[in-house]
């Protein structure tokens, strides 16, 4: 005879259909995106994204305003190429990058959320893919937004690219250029941020890698006349060079660097960033 019994106290079990891996990944992407942009959070979490968005969109808005006010006079020298807009908002992208990657991955480690995520259908790989997707999605808003606004705005003013085919081609090039910038900066930032479990220091790490190497290359090439190919180790400026190459141009600092080297360099940085990220999370062990 048994002397023990477990009573059914009537706790309700979840009887709906379970979403599985795809649904879990979608949730992570969505909630990470919300947390980065400060949606559904207190006002102070929105301050930073708003400041960055203002700085990012300001150049495009100024040029559009000028186009509306003085119209055709803007044609010629004064009128920037679409791809040049990426460079004008460069500082906003940098600041946003230093915030996004740490917010996306570091907080989960600090708060002990990572093991909870991994107890769902998510694995480390699918978790990181979801986080990466959220980083890319939010950064695309800030990076592609301004040039897209300019393209649409100039078109409405009758100053856009001639013909539908050219218009679509311009759009495609802008999207591709923005995507390159976002993927390279995002990968490097995620890699740097994965080195620590404190958000503040993760941001410092991102700044140090991006800005430190960029300054280093800048003074080596300009100050000490190092060869221009050294710019391939500048993860901050290198992805921006893809935009002019798509539009059959070269920007000043990269004149001597061939397009294939530029592409190869960017690929290298993506591999380095993702590799560091993967290595860091592999080391985290059985969390």
């Amino acid at each position: 005879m048994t002397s023990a019994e477990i009573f059914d106290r009537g706790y309700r079990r979840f009887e709906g259909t379970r979403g599985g891996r795809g649904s879990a990944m979608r949730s992570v992407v969505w909630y990470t995106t919300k947390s980065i942009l400060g949606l559904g959070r207190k006002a102070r979490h929105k301050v930073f994204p708003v400041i960055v968005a203002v700085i990012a969109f300001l150049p495009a808005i100024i040029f559009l305003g000028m186009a509306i006010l003085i119209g055709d006079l803007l044609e010629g020298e004064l009128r920037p190429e679409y791809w040049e807009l990426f460079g004008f908002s460069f500082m906003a992208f940098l600041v946003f990058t230093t915030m996004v990657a740490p917010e996306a991955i570091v907080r989960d480690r600090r708060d002990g959320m990572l093991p909870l995520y991994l107890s769902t259908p998510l694995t480390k790989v699918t978790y990181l893919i979801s986080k990466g997707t959220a980083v890319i999605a939010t950064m695309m808003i800030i990076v592609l937004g301004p040039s897209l606004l300019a393209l649409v705005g100039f078109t409405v003013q009758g100053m856009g690219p001639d013909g539908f085919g050219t218009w679509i081609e311009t759009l495609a090039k802008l999207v591709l250029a923005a995507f390159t910038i976002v993927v390279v900066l995002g990968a490097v930032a995620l890699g740097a941020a994965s080195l620590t479990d404190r958000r503040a220091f993760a941001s410092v790490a991102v700044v140090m890698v991006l800005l430190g190497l960029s300054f280093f290359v800048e003074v080596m090439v300009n100050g000490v006349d190092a060869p221009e190919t050294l710019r391939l180790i500048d993860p901050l400026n290198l992805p921006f060079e893809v935009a002019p190459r798509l539009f059959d141009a070269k920007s000043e600092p990269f004149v001597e660097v061939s397009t294939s080297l530029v592409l190869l360099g960017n690929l290298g940085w993506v591999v380095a960033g993702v590799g560091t990220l993967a290595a860091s999370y592999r080391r985290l062990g059985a969390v």
Partner: protein
Amino acid sequence: MSASVSPLRAIGLVHGLLIRQLLTRGRILALLALSVLLGVVSLSVRLSDTLENPLRSSVEIFDVVGFTLVVPIVALVFAGAALGDSREDGTLVYLWLRPMDRWPVVVGAWLAAVSVSLPLTVVPLGISAMIAGVGEGLLMATVLAALVGVLVYSAVFVLLGLLLKNSIIWGIGYILIWEGLIAQFGSALGKAALRGYTRSILANRMDIDLDGFSEVSTASAVAIPIVVTIVALFLAAARLRTMEID
């Protein structure tokens, strides 16, 4: 039975504790890596034989790498964390509920940040200046500017750490957006950026014009940051007195 703690003693106690809390191997290695880059540049200056004006190139290099990046970031990491970390993780109560005045706690925290930041900035910058081999002038100018920079940035970031959560992220925002972007637009704005003073010291001592930024005399470039330091520490003490402790 306890008695109150004298201000000097309190400064010493807070200073000693926070140095231990701040000095982690990861932080030191990461920040030294930053300085190594500077050393490589300086070495290249020395080895290069194609430079028209090595002195000018060196000054520009130290301005860009040293005083836009190394000094503010190092100061930010340690000063922002000095009381900011304690506040966020809830250990500030162990410094707060004590028979000590508020200002010695703030001064002790500032000194701890300075004690850690100075060797990590002045020494690498000084070594780099010597490596560059363009004369003793650069060494003196760099050391003076780094000293002033570390003192004033640390005070401001100690205050920031008490005012804001995520103070380091806001500090990065200040360094990149305010000093790096907005302050470039006008001389009035430039005077509101600490970087203007460190680079003024560098430019004046070396007698070289640097682009942008309105320059001020060396005396002002030292005096104004000292005033800013005192005001920031005063405000931090006032903040510590009135804030709510977890």
